[in-house]
C-alpha cells in the first residue's frame, strides 16, 4: 500500500516537473530540429528516458539542464537514424509556417525565418543562451566546447541574424 502511495507521489511529482518544463523543452527541441512533429517526438522520448532514469536526478533544480542534455542526445539519435544529409531551408520554413507565424508581426516572422537559416552550430548556443538562460560556461560544458569557441559562435550567430534581418553592424566586424 505504501509502495503504491509512494509510486503515485513519485509519478505526480515527475509529471508536475515535466509539465512545468515541457514548453521550453519543446521550444528548444523545435529550434534544434526545425520540425515541430520531430520536436514533439524527441521531447516525448526524452520524458520516457527521464522517467526511467529519474533516480539519477538527485537535485530537482537541475532538472532542466538534465532534460536538455537528454533532448540533445535523443535528437542526435533520431538524426542518426534518419541520416539527413541535405536540408532545404526554404522548404523547412514552408513546412513549419504555422509555427513561425506571428499574427501580423512581420518583424517577428522575419526573425524566425532568419533563425531557421542560421547554421546549427550557431543557432544551438544562441537558443541555449536566450531561451534557456544558459551562461557561456554552461553552454561550453553542454556542447563540449571551449569558452572562447562559444563566444565566437554567439557573436557570429547574432551577426548573421542581424544581416539576415537587414540590420547593419558597422564597427563590429572583429571577433
Amino acid at each position, binding site marked *: 500500500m505504501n509502495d503504491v502511495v509512494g509510486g503515485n507521489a513519485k509519478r505526480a511529482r515527475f509529471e508536475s516537473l515535466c509539465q512545468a518544463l515541457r514548453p521550453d523543452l519543446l521550444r528548444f527541441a523545435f529550434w534544434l530540429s526545425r520540425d515541430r512533429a520531430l520536436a514533439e517526438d524527441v521531447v516525448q522520448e526524452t520524458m520516457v528516458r527521464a522517467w526511467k532514469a529519474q533516480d539519477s536526478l538527485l537535485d530537482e533544480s537541475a532538472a532542466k539542464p538534465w532534460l536538455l542534455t537528454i533532448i540533445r542526445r535523443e535528437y542526435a*539519435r533520431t538524426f542518426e537514424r534518419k541520416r539527413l544529409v541535405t536540408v532545404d531551408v526554404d522548404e523547412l520554413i514552408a513546412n513549419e509556417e504555422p509555427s513561425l507565424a506571428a499574427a501580423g508581426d512581420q*518583424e517577428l516572422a522575419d526573425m524566425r525565418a532568419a533563425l531557421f537559416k542560421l547554421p546549427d552550430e550557431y543557432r544551438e548556443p544562441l537558443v541555449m543562451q536566450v531561451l534557456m538562460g544558459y551562461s557561456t560556461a554552461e553552454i561550453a560544458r553542454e556542447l563540449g566546447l571551449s569558452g572562447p569557441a562559444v563566444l565566437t559562435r554567439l557573436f557570429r550567430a547574432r551577426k548573421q541574424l542581424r544581416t539576415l534581418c537587414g540590420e547593419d553592424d558597422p564597427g563590429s566586424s572583429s571577433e
Partner: protein
Amino acid sequence: MMDHSQYRTAVLTDPNDPDPKLRAHLENCAQCRAFTAKLQGFESNLARALRIDVPAAAPADVAALASRRSPARQPAAAARWLALAASALLGAVLVGTIWLALPTRSLAAAVVAHMAGEPEAWTTEAAVPVPALAAVLQNAKIRLMPQAGTVSYASSCAFRGYVVPHLVVQSESGPVTVMVLVHETQAKTTQFDEQGYRGVIVPVKDHGALAVLVKDPQADAATVAKIAQRVRESIVWTR
C-alpha cells in the same frame, strides 16, 4: 581603453555582459549608446521569436509509456516511420553493394551509438522485475537461462528499423550489454573497440547476430569473447 569595435563585439556575444568596462565605454560613447538601443530592440524580438506557441495539452502518461517499451515511437510518428522505412528499403537496394562491403563497421558503430544514448542502462545493478524481463524476452521470442547472470536492464529498443532486446547483464567483469540482433546478417565474429566500449558481434546461425559490449577498458578481447560465449549459450530461441 575599450574601442567601438571591442564594445560591439562584446555586446553581440552577450548583451547582458556585466563587465564594468562595457558600462564605462557606453557612458562616454553616443554612437555605441545608439547601437545598444537598437540592439535591445533586436534582442527583444529575438527572445519573442524563440518563444513559439506550444500546445498547452496535458503531457502523456510518461510512466505508462515507459512501462510499455522505452524507445518506441508513438502513433503520431507512425506515418513518418513508415515513410522512413520505405526510404530505408529503397536506399538499401541502391547502396546494397557498398553496405555489404562494410557491414561490421556500420553495425558496430550503430550498436555503440545506441549504447551511448542509454547511459541509464549502466547505472543500476538491481535485477529487473521478472514480469518486465519476461515481456522484453517474449517480444524477441527468446528465453534466458539462469547462467546468463543477473539482468539489471531490459528494454525493447528500436534499432535499425527493428525492435530488439537490449539487456544489461551483471558479470564478474561488471555490467555487460547484450543486444540480440535477429535481423542482422553477420558473416563472422568481429571484435571492436569504439568510444570506450569493447565488444564483439557474433553470428548466430538462423538467428542473426549477438552484440556484446563492456565498458571496462581493462577487459581484453579474450574476456569479452568468453562473456559473449556464455551469453550466447544462455539464450534459448523459441522461434
